């Protein structure tokens, strides 16, 4: 008698368990299905929109990686090859030479090379750049705006939520499709390729 009762009890428990199991299973499949419908096979990566960027300098400090994976990118197509480069020289620079005291970049990450009179070419040393955006501000204010901040995707670990996006005062960060991961202002990567 006692044994029979026990068996019955266990069965009831099993039955309830099975009921819950099936309903959880259906729930999971349901959520999966709903999300699958609105999902994209594409992966997303974080990128900042230079049009919204106000060069506050937080990209250099908010990134989870040290140094920041945000780097200055030089869009050579937009560069005026100026001698007096607003991105290279400090505003109060005494001489237009490569001496450290004249440079705007705190890490000397910009190399100035003479091309031909009166043009100079500026290259970014990615390893030195910390993404502070000082040169971007200078170039945007006085020049063509060919220096632009972008997330370097070789270095970015693609956090689920970008730590810089959270701190960005201009809300310039967004998820962009992986196959077109760079946004340049006034210049399209695609145009250049074709």
């Amino acid at each position, binding site marked *: 008698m006692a044994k029979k009762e026990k068996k019955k*009890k266990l069965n009831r428990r099993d039955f309830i*368990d*099975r009921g819950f*199991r099936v309903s*959880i*299973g259906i729930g*999971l499949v349901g*959520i*999966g299905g709903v*999300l*699958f419908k*609105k*999902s994209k*096979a*594409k992966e*997303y*990566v974080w990128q900042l929109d*230079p049009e*919204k960027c*106000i060069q*506050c300098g*937080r990209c250099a400090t908010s990134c*989870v*990686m040290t140094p920041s994976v945000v780097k200055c*990118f*030089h869009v*050579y*197509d*937009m560069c*005026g*090859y*100026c001698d*007096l480069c607003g991105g290279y020289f400090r505003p109060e620079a005494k001489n237009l030479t490569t001496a450290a005291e004249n440079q705007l970049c705190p890490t000397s990450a910009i190399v100035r090379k003479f*091309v*031909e009179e009166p*043009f100079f*070419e500026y*290259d970014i040393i990615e390893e030195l750049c910390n993404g502070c955006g000082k040169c971007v501000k200078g170039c*945007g*204010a*006085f*020049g*063509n705006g060919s220096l632009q901040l972008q997330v370097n*995707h*070789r270095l*970015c*670990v693609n*956090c*689920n*939520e970008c*730590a810089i996006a*959270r701190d960005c*005062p*201009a*809300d310039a960060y967004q*998820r962009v499709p*992986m196959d077109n*991961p760079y946004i340049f202002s006034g*210049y399209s990567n695609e145009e*250049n390729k074709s």
Partner: protein
Amino acid sequence: MKRKLAIIFLLVIISLQIFNSFAIQRFPKPEFESGHTQPPTITPDPRAHALAILDVFVLVAALSVVSWLVIKKRSRKGVFWMSVFAVLYFGFFREGCVCSVGSLQNITLALFNPEYSIPITVIAFFILPLVYTLFFGRTFCAGVCPLGALQDIFALHPMPIKSWLEKVLGIIPFIYLGLAILYAATSTDFVICRYDPFIGFFRLDASFMMFMIGAMLLLIGVFIARPYCRFLCPYGALLNLVSRFSKKHITITPTECIQCRLCEDSCPFGAIEKPVLLKDKEARPIAVRRFLILGIIIPVLVIVGGFVGSQFHENLAIVNPKVRLANELLNNTNYGETEKEAFEITAFNSAGQSKEELFKEAGSIIKQFYYGGWILGGFIGLVFGLTLVSLSVFKYREDYTPNKGTCLSCVRCVDYCPVLPISNDY
């Protein structure tokens, strides 16, 4: 002379104050006579999409192998080496994102925010461990989750903690889960990722504070095994609920329990339940009275919780950057900056959105938080109520069994059981 001209030109530009005209060809690109070729703008590609798909395959493989090791082989050694693999692959090689724990926020965001389209790999990372848990118990926690695996390796000298403390601390993951869902649903923040204590170790890079929290948890974890998994992990809370109804679950003994009590203290997570014999059962009238009291207490807890939660909706909402901005603009507090205009204000002024629009937007977000506060508070009240129920409900149990909810399927207890499996070796 040229330099002077340039300086004069500059001064003209400055006086014109065309600061906002970003990306304007003030100086046309020169035609080089010396045959200089312009270097290309280098845009390095992100991590290949194929690797993300590979991650899903590795996840499925790892879940299958661990489940097999737990259920069929009952091998602690195997599970240990799988956790080492998880730390190496999902931790150090993949460097963290996206993980199943964080993916629950992406799922919530995708359900509530129509603009966000979620990648399929993220759905897989959320759903697969839950499905495996539904069949085999929390094998994901045992040896696939890199966060759990890292702590498991550090659980060198586990000590038992008081069961009341275990119960109370066990409520935290549900509160954390509720908060994470609230913040993800309102597109405010991914709190789980923000306060992930171990990702810094995998990336070998994090803020000092997060390193400290991670190191503290690992140190505590030497004595109180897997503190994050048991007392914080919000995904673990979900798995806990699902695992209770798992089809198969690891058993301590391979055949029949002989009540030898050898396994009693073997579980570092306090997840082994002792037998409850029939004679401990309380008299029926007391049980009925208790049932009635609980029937009153739970709805009261839910309503009180909801009310309290809704009263805190403004405090909860201030985390949202838009609400914060509206608040700072309204009170002219300038983010506590005294020397210059805060960057947020500068950016707002240059973006061209009117204050009224922002206030309206912030108002609707605060309203969302009001309803969210009710739901969150009610949910927390419900969790408290159900914890009470689980403490007072009588459950007849003859043998030593793992608690299907809190058991992490680590297979440690199996080695303590002297009962041999029925095999052909004898």
